């Protein structure tokens, strides 16, 4: 992610110098935390609680993994938390990807589209907006602040129905736009970028750039953006998870299964079992669910250090 957001032609003199003043600010709390953990105080209670939480969160994953290796009939005929019967993972995978003319692949593509366009767009807007709010003063800024804070408090679910009514009047329901456009707005991401930009970019640096005659856009792209990278990744992860797992919004917006994201598609597969004449495909629902969470797990593992440093941003005032 850093590679794609960092400008390719960074002037050798500007970027490293520019980056330096920002770094210590963010690095300090992390280092402090690390020092604290080198002298551990053992607590049985804490270890036990953590252990329980760990098991609690891993058991469903283990269940998913184990049961994705079973056939439809051995699913019902065997103990849930251990392997049984033929190892059917690969045939399940093949079936999942080809069932109903490969509709699962189509749903995967849709989810990717919604994530790239929706979460990507939301991140871009949050970065630009947060930067602007943090580094420029203009009349009405307090008002904007109030609105953003207020918007953070309103759950998206509560807005889904009004949004549906509005979109249906505009003729946008049942199109990818009906999922992408609402996903573009992330008040929390905006707020996070705002506080992050305020901390991470020294105003003096921007003034120096302006003195040297850089335009505002150039300053933003060449100087501010690289400094914002950890924050951007954090917001991107937040919006990505939100869009990837989005269920309710597409549920009321979309009717055409060709535009379903994975969440709705899996639900539709699951519902097949409740139909007269429908085919019960629990094994494919389980394998599909496993495939659905893999990209998210990968994203978290790859980006986790950004995620941590980003979360800590703005939490310590120096």
């Amino acid at each position, binding site marked *: 992610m850093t590679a794609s957001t960092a400008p390719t032609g960074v002037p050798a003199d500007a970027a490293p110098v520019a980056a330096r003043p920002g770094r210590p600010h963010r690095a300090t709390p992390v280092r402090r935390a690390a020092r604290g953990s080198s002298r551990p105080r053992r607590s049985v209670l804490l270890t036990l609680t953590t252990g329980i939480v760990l098991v609690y969160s891993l058991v469903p994953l283990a269940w998913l993994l184990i049961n994705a290796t079973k056939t439809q009939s051995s699913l019902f005929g065997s103990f849930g938390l251990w392997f049984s019967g033929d190892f059917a993972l690969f045939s399940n995978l093949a079936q999942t990807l080809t069932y109903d003319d490969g509709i699962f692949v189509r749903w995967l593509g849709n989810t990717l589209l919604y994530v790239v366009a929706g979460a990507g767009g939301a991140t871009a807007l949050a970065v630009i907006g947060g930067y602007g709010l943090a580094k420029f003063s203009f009349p009405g800024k307090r008002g904007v602040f109030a609105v953003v804070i207020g918007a953070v408090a309103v759950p998206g679910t509560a807005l889904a*129905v009004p949004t549906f009514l509005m979109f*249906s009047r505009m003729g946008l*329901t049942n199109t990818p736009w009906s999922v992408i456009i609402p996903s573009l707005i992330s008040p929390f991401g905006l707020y996070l970028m705002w506080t992050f930009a305020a901390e991470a970019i020294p105003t003096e640096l921007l003034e120096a750039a302006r003195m040297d005659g850089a335009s505002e856009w150039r300053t933003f792209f060449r100087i501010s953006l690289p400094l914002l990278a950890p924050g951007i990744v954090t917001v991107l992860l937040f919006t990505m998870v939100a869009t990837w797992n989005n269920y*309710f919004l597409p549920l009321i917006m979309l*009717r*055409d299964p060709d535009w379903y994201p994975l969440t709705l598609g899996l639900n539709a597969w699951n519902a097949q079992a409740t139909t*007269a*004449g429908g085919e*019960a495909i629990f094994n494919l629902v389980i394998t599909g669910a496993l495939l659905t969470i893999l990209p998210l797990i990968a994203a978290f593992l790859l980006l986790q250090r950004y995620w941590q440093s980003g979360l800590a941003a703005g939490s310590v005032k120096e």
Partner: protein
Amino acid sequence: MTALPRTVLRGVALAGAATLALTACGGGSADDGGTAGEPVDTGSVLEDGGELLVWAWEPTLEQVVEDFEAEYPNVDVELANVGTGNDAYTALQNAIAAGSGVPDVAQVEYYALPQFAIAESLADLGGLGASELDGTFTPGPWASVQQGDGIYGLPMDSGPMALFYNEEVFTQHGVAVPTTWDEYVEAGRALHAADPEVYITSDSGDAGFTTSMIWQAGGKPYTVDGTDVTIDFTDEGSARFAEMWQQMVDEELVSPVAGWSDEWYQGLGNGTIASLIIGAWMPANLESGVEAAAGKWRVAPMPQWEAGGSDTAENGGSALSVTAASEQQELAYAFIEYANAGDGVQTRIDGGAFPATVAELESEEFLGKEFPYFGGQKVNEVLAQSAQGVVEGWQYLPFQVYANSIFNDTVGQAYVSDITLAEGLADWQEASVAYGNEQGFTVSD
């Protein structure tokens, strides 16, 4: 996450339904929703072609659409599964309320059809040629698609009820297959006594099952005449069912597993749910969902109230309807006629569906088919026989979808608390009457 959205969604749907019902009543009987034109000259309509949007969840329709498009290349049919049952009705009601994205053809179950018909959401197919199809379909489904003078859909499948049972379990415990409801209760006791894990059936409160059982018992709790509705669950048939089933619930002879859940499929597979009283569309579900019990299941006629009787009822089943909002009603009608009364019927039977057409139900090929899943039994003989015995005169409410949605809050309580089924039915009646009156119907009990 799960609780809230459903409620909100239902709210939207109900708001939509409310508006629809009110406009329907305001409009009076000025005209019916559909075109009252000439019977469709299907040939030329199909020749001209066009695009059709079909909302249905019936899996066998996929092949029908494919064949249809091959035969009439100018017609482009888009088949979308927007959800099953209630989900589909919510979607349909939302689309109609929003005035956009309404499909040309929708799959509607018989119990839900009056609700859409009276709201003038569906086209009257009588003038398009459906009135000439009298006698094509079995009486139960054919009556179900008619409302007043209009015909609001063509029956796609039907669900005359039968007793599906796991022969191995019955034989193992030396219990005879019941032919009357008294024997059924006895069999339930014997099975559960022989093995406490085994239940004769499962029921956790299901509106479709309860209404069908009352239907077979000769009850007619709903009488509908235009917007005048009577709801009365104290008639003899309803009481007869409630009394018999109360024993099953009181003695805990029915498994509390909810129908269509994964535990239910598991129970059907491992023999802990030993039988089902259910519609004739069940074989396909058993074959695909309960592979583990292949060869063990059999089908017998539905148990009777009087020994030697042959009364049955319909359970489930659905029609294809043309929406009033469709701009291509003639083409849409041509499609549903193909699917439900034409070449599509055989295609769907081959796919495992149970038809509603007389010709197919009487054909040698259909009746003689041996089902390996049922140990080679000629299952259709039993099921077709059941279609003959459907008790006449049953009606559903013009707001049955809503009524069924509150079933679990009323009758369903009899399964989990100490109120009786009869009391639950009285609660259901009261709540349904109140809702109907709010919607602008004249409902009495």
